[in-house]
């Protein structure tokens, strides 16, 4: 069902935890329909020097959180904001179709954390000008059924 990479990131997730006094925190999702993802950022000089996550969700949700944090760690905030769910899926060697939405959540969690950082520091990050923090971004489980 899942690729080896997904299982690796699920069983040995990178960057699990919290950052005390984080520079940016983003929480997305809705326990009502699925998962909750929370991302903590430490930013120095516009560079993400540390990132942690906590996730309540399925294997795919945990693996995409882990991969997303890996992909933005050490990057500038401008680069991090460009992270797409497709990039996360690709880095994980793919996800089953009904699980792709979990990766959208990962992208949204990163954006939410960056937005929080921008708010706290009174800056505008290119690409986030029109960002509206939405908690319920979880268009859940449109499986491949036909009926």
């Amino acid at each position, binding site marked *: 069902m899942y690729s080896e990479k997904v299982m690796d990131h699920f*069983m040995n997730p990178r960057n699990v935890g919290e950052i005390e006094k984080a520079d940016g925190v983003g929480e997305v999702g809705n326990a*009502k329909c699925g998962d*909750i*993802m929370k991302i903590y950022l430490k930013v120095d000089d516009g560079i993400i020097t540390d990132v942690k996550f*906590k996730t309540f*969700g*399925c294997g795919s949700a945990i693996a995409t959180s882990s991969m997303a944090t890996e992909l933005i760690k050490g990057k500038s905030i401008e680069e991090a904001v460009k992270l797409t769910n497709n990039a996360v899926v690709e880095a994980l060697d793919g996800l089953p179709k009904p699980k792709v939405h979990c990766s959208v959540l990962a992208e949204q969690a990163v954006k939410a954390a960056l937005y929080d950082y921008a708010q706290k520091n009174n800056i505008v990050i290119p690409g986030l000008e029109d960002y509206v923090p939405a908690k319920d971004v979880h268009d859940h489980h449109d*499986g491949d059924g036909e009926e």
Partner: protein
Amino acid sequence: MKKRIYLDYSATTPMKKEVLDEMMPYFNEKFGNASSIHSFGREAKEALDIARDRIAKAIGAASSEIFFTGGGSEADNWAIKGIAFANKNKGSHIITSKIEHHAVLHVCEYLEKNGFEVTYLDVDEYGMIDLEQLKEAITDKTILISIMFVNNEIGTIQPIKEIAEIAKEKGVYFHTDAVQALGNIPIDVKELGVDLMNFSSHKIYGPKGVGAIYIKKGVKIHPLIHGGAQERKRRAGTENIPGIVGFGKAAELAIENLDAHIAHIQKLRDKLIEGIKNNIDYVRLNGHPTKRHPGNVNFCFEFIEGESLLLSLDMVGIAGSSGSACTSGSLDPSHVLMAIGLTHEIAHGSLRLTIGDFTTEEDIDYVIENLITIVDRLRQMSPLYEKVK
């Protein structure tokens, strides 16, 4: 080889050796079509008759009241559509419950789109229907009540005899899906007084793709599968003789071993329930504490999600199932967990472990040990757990 512990006996069971042995000659020696009048056909027909007798005996029915199908779902569809279409001149109202198997619920929904009206009874926090609500739901137009015997997710056992009495009093047909009941609790259709009852072979250590339905003599029902004259013209299709032979043997074994089987799985079930309750906090046992399938364990583990739990268990060789939305392939968590009043969050963390004849004490120890670690690891990752700590 890696340790592999199967705790998903309510999903399906391995076939017993005696069952396979019994089936073997029918694949390419006694392979005839039971409708043929030559010797190959007669061999097949004899085997068919014996299997039918065995199923009949297992539930206290007459052999002529047993019809073989291609599985439990086909039998559910047949019972409900067959009664609905054959009796629509009498009425168009059906009563069922919110916790039925999808093979009942989705048929009812289909009938709703085709001129029938369906009442879905509530259940209480333990998954029990309310007999008073049932009585009130019955109208002049009611033609069928369909309430399952034993729930496949939470294991709750319904008061079938009482329901049958109410149905009889009101002159309404009563069907019960006994797929999870056969081989796990004693069944006597005459004593229970039901009109239709269906079974599935692969849940009782028999082959997959075979089921049966008890249709009480005199019940007015249409076929679901029209065609040849098999099954007394009620269910067409060349009979799956090896499958039917295996099912018959499995039913015979199930009845012979019923007491020992129940004692064995119940002991392990209770050990697993206690092990979880005593070692992990924020858990909730789903289903009825006593009126319960002897091998069913169903817990919610707060703050974590079922699929993650299943995958983690699978990594240490333990096979279970979950009613979490993430494993359901649909928007919502299990309709059964919703019906007993769980919130989406809580339902998300559900785990069903179902015990069978091949489960051992050591298996249970191994499961408890691993479950403790896994639940803890997943909770450490959970933003929800953080808050309660």
